[in-house]
Every structure is written in C-alpha cells, then in structure tokens.
C-alpha cells in the first residue's frame, strides 16, 4: 500500500472547516471564550452564503464590539452609544435596496439606546438587529446592565442587583416582539455547536427576510457570556449562563413572519 502524503489529504473535497471569508485577518480583541467572536463569525458566514457582501452595510455599537468594523470585512459605520438603530434607519431609508444591520450589546440597545431601539422597531424599519445580551457592561469593566439578573453581582451592584432600588431586568426582546413593526423576533445562544447552528439559522432567516423585503425588523437576541465581567472561567461562565440566564431569558422564536409564536 502506497504511503499517504499530506497532498493526498489537503484537497477541496476533504475540507470540513475554513476561516470565514468575510472576516478580516485582524486578531479578535475579545476575551478567550467570549461569545462575541462566534456571533461575528456566523453573521459574516450568513452574509457570505447569501451572496450579500457587496450589498451590505453594518453598524457597529459602542461596547466590546465597538471594533466589529475591524473584523467584519464589509462596509461598516460605527455609531454613537445606543444610536445604531437610528444610524441604520438613516442608511436604509436612503439606500432601500441595501442590506443594513446593527450589532449591539445590552447596554447599548436596552439602556442608553432604548428609545432608538423601540422606535426603529415600531416604525418597522427593514433592518436586522443582532443583540448580544451578556447581562453586563463588558467593555467598561463589568457594571450593571439593564439585563443584569436579580441578585447578580456587578461592579455597580457589588452586593447583587437589588430590584427594589435598582429596578428589574428588562426583557426588551419580548417587548419589541409586541410592536407591529417587528417581523421576526428570536432568542438564541452560541455556547455549544448545536446552539451555534440554530443561531446561525436564525440569523440567516433574519437576513433573508430583509433580502426579500419583508415588512419590519428582524431581531435576533443572542444570550451570551461575559466571563471577564462575570469573573468566571469561560466554562463556568457558560454553565452559569445555562443555569441562570436561560431560565430568565428562554431560548427560541418569539415572533415568526409577523406572528407571535410564544
């Protein structure tokens, strides 16, 4: 039997995984184990697979993913903290044939940018919103977010979130699902290969909706970890997320094709 060489193995038909074509070569700035990188990757894979590279304009937020434009190899605009849905509205209204999406954290989307989020959703802007909910302000060092769970510790709720004085966590995804301007609202995660596949399917559906000119916002929440902010190892953070975040922020579709399913 002839010896098997590397050349025999490295063939296109044997390819099982490759670098996402629409990600740049820039090293990701995210902490190891952080969900942001995976969420970036599947978003760019979807844009690539749908052939939308030349037609898409992304809007980066202020938060850990402020540098999303360094990693996503398409035209990008960086918005002020919380204003991404307004920026995306501006672009989409003057370039209605383009695909426009925002990528935002929970502080960005559900605290400082609540007004822009609700009104873009209520107007039914034909955009995609990708919402990374890690229950904390990752970028600024782990302060309390609008999504921080009751009792959860952060640097500004060092004894745990006291809902009496600090308010309750905001389920903004359930809230926007109630608005007539949202067309597709779903909650996903990216902590296991199975979850990544599901999340990617949801993101694909969101971009297909916009490509097909469906009326309204396609809103994809991804419940994610922030191991640095939560002060846990990546594995502990994922386990904690499953045990604590998922019961409060249940997975799955909330609204599909403009119809509530939950």
């Amino acid at each position: 039997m002839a010896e098997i060489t590397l050349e025999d193995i490295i063939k296109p038909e044997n390819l099982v995984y490759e670098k996402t074509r629409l990600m740049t070569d820039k090293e990701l700035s995210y902490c190891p184990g952080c969900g942001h990188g995976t969420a970036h990757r599947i978003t760019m894979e979807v844009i690539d697979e749908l052939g939308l590279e030349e037609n898409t304009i992304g809007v980066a937020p202020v938060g850990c993913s402020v540098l999303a434009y360094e990693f996503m190899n398409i035209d990008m605009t960086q918005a002020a903290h919380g204003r991404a849905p307004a920026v995306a509205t501006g672009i989409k209204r003057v370039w209605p044939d383009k695909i426009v999406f925002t990528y935002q954290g929970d502080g960005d989307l559900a605290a400082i940018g609540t007004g822009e989020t609700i009104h873009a959703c209520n107007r039914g802007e034909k955009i995609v919103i990708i919402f990374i909910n890690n229950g904390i302000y990752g970028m600024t060092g782990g302060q309390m977010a609008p999504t921080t769970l009751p009792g959860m510790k952060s640097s500004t709720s060092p004894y745990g979130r006291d809902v009496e004085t600090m308010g309750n966590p905001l389920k903004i995804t359930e809230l926007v699902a109630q608005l007539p301007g949202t067309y597709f609202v779903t909650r996903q995660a990216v902590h296991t290969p199975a979850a990544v596949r599901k999340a990617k399917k949801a993101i694909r559906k969101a971009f297909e909706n916009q490509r097909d000119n469906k009326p309204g916002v396609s809103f994809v929440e991804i419940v994610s970890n922030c191991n640095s902010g939560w002060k846990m190892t990546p594995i502990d953070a994922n386990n904690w997320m499953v045990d604590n975040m998922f019961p409060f922020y249940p997975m799955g579709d909330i609204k599909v094709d403009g119809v509530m399913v939950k």
Partner: protein
Amino acid sequence: MGELKLMKGNEAMAEAAIRAGADAYFGYPITPQSEVIEYLMAEKPFERTGMVVLQAESEVAAINMVYGAGGSGKRVMTSSSSPGVSLKQEGLSYIAGSEIPCLYANVVRGGPGLGTIQPSQADYFQSVKGGGHGDYKQIVLAPASVQEMADFVKLGFDLAFKYRIAVLILSDGVIGQMMEKVELFDQVPRMTDAEIKEKYPWATTGKAKGTERRIITSLDLDSLKMEKHNHHLQAKYKLITENEVRFELIGCEDAEYVFVAYGSSARIAQKSMQLARKKGIKVGLLRLITLFPFPTKQIQTLCDQGIKGFLAVEMSAGQMVEDVQLSVNGRAKVAHYGRFGGIVHSPEEVELALEQILIGG
C-alpha cells in the same frame, strides 16, 4: 430669473432643500422651526424628487439618521431650534470626527433651558466653538433674509461635500418666521447612486468584491493615530479659514465706527446706521455671513483703516463680541450691545448704544 414666491424663512429653507437635490430630511418638531418638516410633509418631495422625509422620535435620533445617511454619501439635512440642537451635539461631534458631510439649521430661540420661543442669538458659542466634545469646527452660515435661508441650503450642501464637514445654517426666530419675497433657484437633480459611488469613494455604499471596505468611524484607540487625525482635521479647518470667509461691508469707506452683526441683528444695525448717519456719526456695518470661519483679517483691515471702535450687536449677553475683541486685539475700542432672552433690540436703542456705550463710554 427663478420662480418668485412669498414665503416664511423656514418654508424657503425646506423648499430649497428639495430643489438642492437633497436625498433626505430627518427632523423633530420644535418652535420656531416646525414649518420646515410641516412644509416638507405637505409638499411630498418623495413624489417630486424621491427625497425621503422622516419625523424622528427625537433630535438625537434625527442627527444619528443624518450620520448614517450622510456617511453613505447622500445629501441629508436636519433642522431644529436651540433645545433640540443641544441634544444633537453628541452626534455632531461624531460627524466631525468621522468627517460626514451634512447640513443642519438652528432657528435659535431664547434660553437657557426651555427658555422662550422668541428669537435669540445666544447659541453663537455652541455653534462656532464646538458645542460637542473634542477639537472640532463646523462651517456656520448666518442668513439675514428669507432669500438667504433658501440660497444657503444650496451653498451649505456644496461646502459640506467640498470639505466633508457639517454646515450649520444659524438662523433665528425672526428670519425663520418672517415672510419675504424669495427667488427660488431651479431644481438640481438628485445624484444617482452610480454618481455617488464614483464621486464619494469614502462612503459606505456596499463593498465591491476585491476592493477595500469603507469604514465610517471617529474612533482610534491608537493615540498617535488619533493625534494625526486631529492634525488632519485642523489642516482642513485652516483651509476653510483661508478660503471660505464671507461677509458684507456696508458704508465702511468713510466710517469711524463699525457695527459688527449677523442675521436679524445685522438688519437692525443697518437701520441704526442710517439713524446715526442722519446725526452725522460716521458708522458702517460689517455683516458676518460666515461665523466660522470668522472674518478676522477683514476686521484687522478695518483697524488699519483707522476705525476707532466696533460695536458688536447681537441678541445675546455678549458672545460674538469675544471674537471681535480677539480680532481687534487692542487696536480699537470694542463694546457690546444686545437684548436677549427673546427680546429683539430696536434700531433706536442700538443707535443710542453706539453713542453712549461705544463713543461716549
């Protein structure tokens, strides 16, 4: 000759936006400038030229819509009045940092706070010194008539795209609300998508395969690069200062004293000038058209000419007067007169101020 119409200043500005080939207007109602969006909604430019008009949920949202659309190479505009313009400052700072061309108007009312809906010129500092954070400038045009409310829209868009900068039409409740005859310029066609892509290669219009992507951002975590970017911005502002100063000199040839004013105060000062001249006082008027860039050189030339004193006339407690002082640099007397908080000074009181505060004071 263009079409003649009797219009309010705010309406003339709105009509001019359509005719200047604007792609979009995003705004939020506030007195005394709500006629801009009301006129646009009634006029349906989406049917006339394809221009988008959208009432945003706030001035914050409106300026960020301008940021997004302007960053994608389109001609976009917003307008507001003082409290709303305060809300836009964060967005304007981002627009300066990201070098986004856009046009906006402030039809100024009295402040601070909710203040009054009556006219004022108390937003001068905010307009020319940079109301938001960071080292930045914007071009500030000060119309003194309904005609200029229309003409400065076209000029403003041209300057905005020439320098990739925000251009502000700094008006006030008098100019915005009064009706005058205006000669409207002919319709300029909106640029096609292909023209935009060709002319503005920096704009986010979708990255063609095999080309470099475009990024609109004001961020650079590398401070050395950020300093370099700031140097680039400063060089641009210097170029603007060298090339874009606009003003009007009225009766300054034989003058011993000069009123310095802009907008509605300039119209009043022109009347005061006539009153003073009847009394034998040789006074002229320097009407500022650009507030940034400021006509420093022109004021120095007037000093060379032997002007004894300058009276800054403005509806504020004294803002523009500081730039007059800096320009005069001790070579002549400088004084300020102005009513404020929503009060418009009369030509008579301005003339009296010339005699009592500048000449006699």
